[in-house]
Every structure is written in structure tokens, then in C-alpha cells.
């Protein structure tokens, strides 16, 4: 592990740059999902579900459902973009395209490749969250300037979820095995991570479980930033997300290295 960390270098940005180049050559289509996603959600939830649930009690205030839910979709996007990039996309580059193999013939080391992939998956979360923040601002759903905190939250949240993704990339034998973490980890977080309803209405045991999930903390931070809420608990979640992202990233590095260098 120590050798792995010592081998980390800025050259990993070359790998990041490669992935970014591919992304930005098709930016018009790449930017579409994070632009349209919040609009779709806002339409569906605002026009549909919002009619049924008029108000939500949250943080001692009464919010419109849309106001409550909008930050949740940003948190979900942070999770999905990082996770998909570091699982399916990284796996395609590693296994089908042999992109890593090609890069490893150059002065870059395997650590550079893995860190580059982590940083790129993280960047996708940051890009998506930033675009969505713009859209939600235009819809009048963001408190400024606290909304800007979404960017660092997306960075550490993105790193956390890309590390989780890459851990699975280091283990799976076929690409379809990603369905396992997808439905045992990601989807439960999507539904129970404090995205669509305030989790304090859950029974006590479920509430405890929910607070163990990384997305719950990312959603709590994101929502507080977007709504401009302050709470002493924010520190707990911030420490959780930063610490978990660094620990999981180091673990993913070590696991991926073992997969790539037999």
C-alpha cells in the first residue's frame, strides 16, 4: 500500500486528460443528460407528485415538495455519474479497449492510470452537479452563495462513489456482474438515501441504516447547501464524506493494482 501511494504522481492527469478529451469531443450530447434530467424531474414531480404532497417538514421549516426534492436529484447525479463512469466505462476501457495496456507502455505507471480514472469519474460528478446547479438556479430553487458548496461536495462525493465503483471494477469477471452492486448498494441508496423524502419519518432501525449510507450524507450536505441551511451536523457528514472518499480511494487503488499487475 505504501509503495502504491508513493507511486502516485501528477502524470495521472494525462489519463484524466485522455478521458476528458473523449468526453469533450462529444460535449453536445454529453451535456444533455445533466441538463434535461433536472427539468424532467421538476416537471414530473412538480406537476405530478407535488400535487399530492404539497408540503414537507424539513429542518424545522415547511418546504414545497419540489424545493425539498430538487437537491436530492443533484446528490443522486453525483452518485450515478461517478459510479457508472468508474464501473461500466472504466471496465470497457480496461477490458475491451485495452486502453490501460496501451498507456502502461509509456512512462506512466499503473497507479497513474488508476488515479486518472478515479479523478475522471469524479470530474463527471462535478460537471453534472454544476450543470444541474445552473438549471435549478434558473428555476429559482437554489440559495446563493451557499449553493456553490455543491462543487466541493460533488468532488468528494464523486471521489467516494468512483472509489466504490472502481472497487467493483477490480473484482468483476464480466461486465454484467456490475448488476450486483448496482442493485444491492446503489439502488438502495437511491431510494433510501434521503433523496425523495425526509428520512426522519423512517422507523428507528431504518433511520440508523440510512445514516450509514454514503449517499445520505452527500444528500444532506447537498440539500443544506442548496437550501442555505446550516446545522452543526454538517461537520459530521463532511468528515464522513471526505474520510470515506480518501480511504475508499486508497483501497480501490490497491485492489485495482492487484488486478492489473498479476
Amino acid at each position, binding site marked *: 500500500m505504501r509503495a502504491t501511494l508513493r507511486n502516485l504522481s501528477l502524470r495521472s492527469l494525462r489519463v484524466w486528460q485522455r478521458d476528458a478529451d473523449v468526453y469533450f469531443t462529444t460535449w453536445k450530447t454529453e451535456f444533455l443528460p445533466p441538463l434535461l434530467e433536472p427539468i424532467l424531474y421538476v416537471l414530473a414531480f412538480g406537476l405530478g407528485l407535488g400535487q399530492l404532497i404539497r408540503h414537507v417538514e424539513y429542518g424545522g421549516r415547511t418546504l414545497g415538495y419540489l424545493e425539498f426534492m430538487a437537491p436530492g436529484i443533484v446528490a443522486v447525479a453525483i452518485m450515478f455519474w461517478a459510479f457508472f463512469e468508474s464501473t461500466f466505462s472504466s471496465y470497457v476501457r480496461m477490458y475491451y479497449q*485495452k486502453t490501460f495496456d496501451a498507456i502502461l*507502455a*509509456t*512512462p506512466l505507471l499503473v497507479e497513474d492510470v488508476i488515479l486518472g480514472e478515479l479523478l475522471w469519474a469524479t470530474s463527471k460528478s462535478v460537471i453534472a452537479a454544476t450543470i444541474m446547479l445552473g438549471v435549478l438556479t434558473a428555476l429559482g430553487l437554489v440559495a446563493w452563495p451557499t449553493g456553490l458548496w455543491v462543487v466541493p461536495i460533488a468532488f468528494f462525493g464523486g471521489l467516494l462513489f468512483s472509489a466504490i465503483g472502481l472497487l467493483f471494477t477490480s473484482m468483476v469477471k464480466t461486465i454484467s456482474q456490475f448488476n450486483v452492486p448496482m442493485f444491492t448498494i446503489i439502488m438502495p441508496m437511491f431510494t433510501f438515501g434521503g433523496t425523495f423524502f425526509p428520512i426522519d419519518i423512517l422507523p428507528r432501525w431504518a433511520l440508523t441504516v440510512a445514516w450509514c449510507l454514503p449517499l445520505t450524507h452527500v444528500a444532506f450536505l447537498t440539500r443544506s447547501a442548496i437550501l442555505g441551511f446550516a446545522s452543526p451536523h454538517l461537520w459530521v457528514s463532511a468528515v464522513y464524506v471526505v474520510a470515506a472518499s480518501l480511504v475508499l480511494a486508497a483501497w480501490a487503488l490497491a485492489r485495482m493494482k492487484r488486478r492489473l499487475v*498479476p
Partner: protein
Amino acid sequence: MNGLPGTSAIQARDLCKAYAGMEAVRGVSFDVAPGEVVGFLGPNGAGKTTTVRMISCFLPPTSGTATVYGVDVRTSPREVKRMLGVCPQEDNLDPDFDVLKNLLAYGRYFGIPGREIRERAERLLDFVQLADRKKSGVQELSGGMKRRLVLARALLNEPRILILDEPTTGLDPQARHAIWTRVRSLRATGVTVLLTTHYMEEAAQLCDRVVVIDNGKILMQGAPADLVRREVGSTVVEAWNFDRAFADFLGALPGRLEEVGDRLYYYPGAEDHVERLLDERFPHQERLIRRATLEDVFLKLTGRALRD
């Protein structure tokens, strides 16, 4: 630049690699002199690729040492890889980029300045005759074009050593000769080449020296012509539709006789007058007398059993 004058380009001592529950390479030692073209010859699974991948820092050796111009592959992989140009067995061109961008992105991994990469890329695309395909997607290229692009990519960092892992496997004769011509012209400029192949003709065409490897060990090495002379002599008699009397007759002569299915191979060693002898004694026997080749050496050393 690196190492002292007279240093080997590549030096390997007792290299071993065990992985996936088997010993792929079991104690391989060899030297490659600067400017030399050395071919690793061996059947599938012999350990050629594993050896080459240890030299090019893809796989850490289980034991043993390897240096490239005096630099240890284990402790200074970045420095070693800077001196190498690698053409892998499997095409790993970047399908997300077009032809030119493949080279530009690859040059960045070496930290070559942008303008310099572009100049080299243009020159190399001319060299491999892909200058008119700059904007083509990698998927649109034929197998031969892809290989040429891989070669151009391997030359981008102006390597001192070119490593070609089965450079022409699966190519048609035109494409194969196109690669050979370019490798020969590189050799003329003093580039050291280490290649693996199981095509004898390729080894004979390109290599100053071949290293025959099987079951993870080096069986023999030498200049192709010397190996042929030493191991099988100058001529081979191949016969078919033969009877016992003919086989027994050859068996009684000095030299080596081999019966494989319906074919008889006779290696007369130093015998020069075998043709006259056969004409006199068995004038109607169907046979061919040909020059011995590296393939005869190869089959003698590695046997005829199928490998996969």
C-alpha cells in the same frame, strides 16, 4: 544517455515468472547488444510474451533481474519505458480517437511537447503510409493499417529499443512485407529490436540472432543460418507414398530420419550426394529435396506436438 558505452541494450539474468498457478518463464538469461535484432522464437505458450512483458515493465519478475541500458526494470520502470517502443500483440489503439489523435494522445503520456508530437506524428504517418488516413477512425482501418499505426505509435518517443510482440500475426503477405520493410529500415538507423514470432520466415528475414524458447526456457540461440547448419545441416529430403524398403534404406544412412503421418523427413547432415544416391536406387520415389530452414530447427527443438 543511460549506461556506459558497451553496455548491453538488454540484459536478463535468471528471469522467472510464476502467475495464474503456473511457471510461465523458468530461468531465462540473455543479452541483446545495441543495434542488434533479436527474435524470440517459440510455440504458443512458450513464455515469449511473458519474457517480453517483463522487459517492458508490464509484469514484475518473480525472480531474476533485467536491465535496459543498465537501468533496472524493477526499480526504474518510468526510465526504462521511456527508452522503449512497444508494439503489443493485441491491437490496443484508442478506438475513441482518430488516427492522428491516437498519436497525439500517446505522445502526451511521454510528456513530449505538443508541437514536437505533432511534427513527429506527421513524419511517422508518412513513414507507415497512413498520411491520408489522419482523420479516419481506428475501426475503419484494415488489420494491416492498424499494425502500421501501432508501429508508428511505438516510434513516437524515438525509442532506443523497439519491442515487437508478434508484429505480423494475422496479416496478409502484403501487409506483412510492409512491416518487415519498415523494421529493416529502422534497423539500418541503429535501433535495437527485440521481437517475438512463430513465423520462421519472419525470424530469418529480420533477425541477426534468434533465441528458441519453449516451456519457459531457452533451448538454443544463434544466427539463423548458423542454427540451421548446426542443428539440421543444409538439406532435407521429404518423401511421401513410400514403402518400408525406402524408409529402411534412409534409416541405415547417417543422419536423422523422422516419420510424421504419411510423410518422411530425412536430414542427411553432411551428406551431399544423397540426391544422386536416391536417383540411382529409388528413381520413382516421390520426394522433394530442399534447403533446410529455421522451421526444421524449430520443429526439431520443440517437437511436433500441438500446443493449444
